[in-house]
């Protein structure tokens, strides 16, 4: 939690010093409740991650809330077709802030192997995504790794004025960034 150790060693025991941001982050990340948005094959691996062997209950996440009003995290698991996209947006809108989303699998991250008329090429065309998880389907351990990275992100999120500052910086960076096909890579 990043405690300010120096000051506490000098005080009598029973004190813990931290910041509001760190405390709020700690609370939020340790009790994320996912919303059921399992669509296709990735949903089965998500269910396997929630089952006995790869247990999501150790993070407090085995309750997959059916109602989006009670959920914090939406794991979009599976291919999103053009018919399903408005439904996805509606469910995401019905979730209360703070909310996060993981695009699980290649189809949710980028359309996957289905580059055609029927599939939305990446769920970030429809909702904002925090973590992209590749794989076809990703193993339950990979899903847990993505959730842990999300936990880190959530634990370090800023609040209030700091948050607005970060959001403005990120937006400016994104507007000024070079598009992918102009970057230097292995294919150039």
């Amino acid at each position, binding site marked *: 939690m990043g405690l300010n150790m120096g000051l506490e060693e000098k005080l009598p025991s029973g004190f813990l010093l931290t910041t509001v941001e760190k405390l709020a982050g700690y609370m939020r990340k340790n009790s994320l409740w996912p919303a059921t948005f399992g669509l296709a*094959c990735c949903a089965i691996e998500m269910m*396997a991650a929630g089952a006995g062997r790869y247990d999501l209950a150790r993070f407090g996440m085995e309750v997959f809330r059916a109602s989006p009003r009670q959920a914090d995290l939406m794991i979009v698991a599976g291919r999103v077709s053009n018919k399903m996209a408005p*439904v996805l947006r509606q469910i995401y809108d019905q979730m209360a802030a703070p909310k996060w989303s993981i695009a699980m699998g290649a189809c949710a991250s980028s359309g996957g192997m289905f580059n055609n008329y*029927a599939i939305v090429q990446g769920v970030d065309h429809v909702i904002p995504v925090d973590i992209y998880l590749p794989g076809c389907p990703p*193993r339950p351990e990979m899903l847990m790794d993505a959730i842990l990275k999300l936990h880190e992100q959530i634990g370090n999120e800023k609040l209030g004025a700091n948050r607005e500052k970060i959001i403005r910086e990120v937006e400016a960076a994104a507007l000024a960034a070079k598009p992918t096909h102009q970057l230097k890579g292995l294919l150039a």
Partner: protein
Amino acid sequence: MTTFIDPYASSQETTEGRVYSVTGGDWDSLVTEIGATKEERVVVNMGPQHPSTHGVLRLILELEGETITEARCGIGYLHTGIEKNTEYRNWTQGVTFVTRMDYLSPIFNETAYCLGVEKLLGITKDITERATVLRVMMMEFNRISSHMVALGTGALELGALSPMIFAFREREKVLDIFELVSGLRMNMAYVRPGGVAQDLPEGALSKIKQTVKDLRHNFKDNEKLLVGNSIWIKRTQGIGYLDLAGCTTLGVTGPVLRSTGLAWDLRKAQPYCGYEDYKFDIPTTDTCDVYGRFLIRMQELEQSLRIIEQCVVKLEKLEGQPVMVADKKIAWPSQLSVGADGMGNSLNHIREIMGESMEALIHHFKLVTEGFRVPAGQVYTAIESPRGELGVNLVSDGGTRPYRVHFRDPSFNNLQSTSAMCEGGQISDVVAAVASIDPVMGGVDR
């Protein structure tokens, strides 16, 4: 206080009448509004995102009180255009697309497609016996893992939470076998036209024997939880009735058809992949209800274990046989193994194509870039998947790419019977009936 208008919680006039959105805590206001219009019948949408509808299935129910007067299914929320995608890929690459249709039984999709391609090529008799036995063994393991999901999620939708954990525990054992043999847990692309991708690794057979023993012992847990359970029986007996006449006219096959008393299983009636040489029974019940289908699925697990044991005995005798067809113009060239670079290229194969045989190099190049050519014609091949008859219609125009691939998915037909099963019943019975049909929406929508 500003009035906040929730875009999803207002009632609006549409061409079909008033549409209300219920968001919680507003049942009273909803009832007074509906009561004012003197409408007795309410159309309720159990929308595509729902914990109990077994996937992205939209159920449109017209209710009178708690009884359903009309039930319709809205599908297509998972339509991926797989059939059109295969027209732009090789025949072999089609396997990776086709395996993701019915995602709970990927091996069945692959096998149906490969049997169809082999029928078009005319090499059905040239498939080596080892490849055929491997296909049968993987199919039966897939049947077990698919039924485990069916039973687990079926129980979950009706409110029984523990059987799902037990079922997924058994499924993990089967997925371990899949990973050992093919490298992946799901969507393996293991069965290819001409044979299978690679042979069994060392020690696989003993692991399989041990797994069969464990599974047989652990299946009793689920039985103890559900079979004699009075709540389970009350919720599943007499529910979702569909008799033989209904099944045949709707084209329903699989456990739903076998629950009417007719022992129709393509593995016995029109055997493929050497199924005529295996000893197994076809469980049937004659109650035509959800409980009967549940019992059939539980008994099919034991029959699958019997077949796997017979496969293991055959595989031990067939050590050393190749797993791809002998015709080098069709057989997938590379012999995979994890080499020194960890990238899966077998050094023997590379030495052969680079140093020893020009033909092997040419075959490898042509097969991987262009693919083999399949003579023109049309074929329909059907196999028995865990949900029923999985058929594939293949049309070839003589080229290296399919002209048309159409899958007759069992869940597509079986789901049509929802209206017949649910009208006149109650909403909670809809959940039980749909769970007993066990539709996999990837197959329904393709």
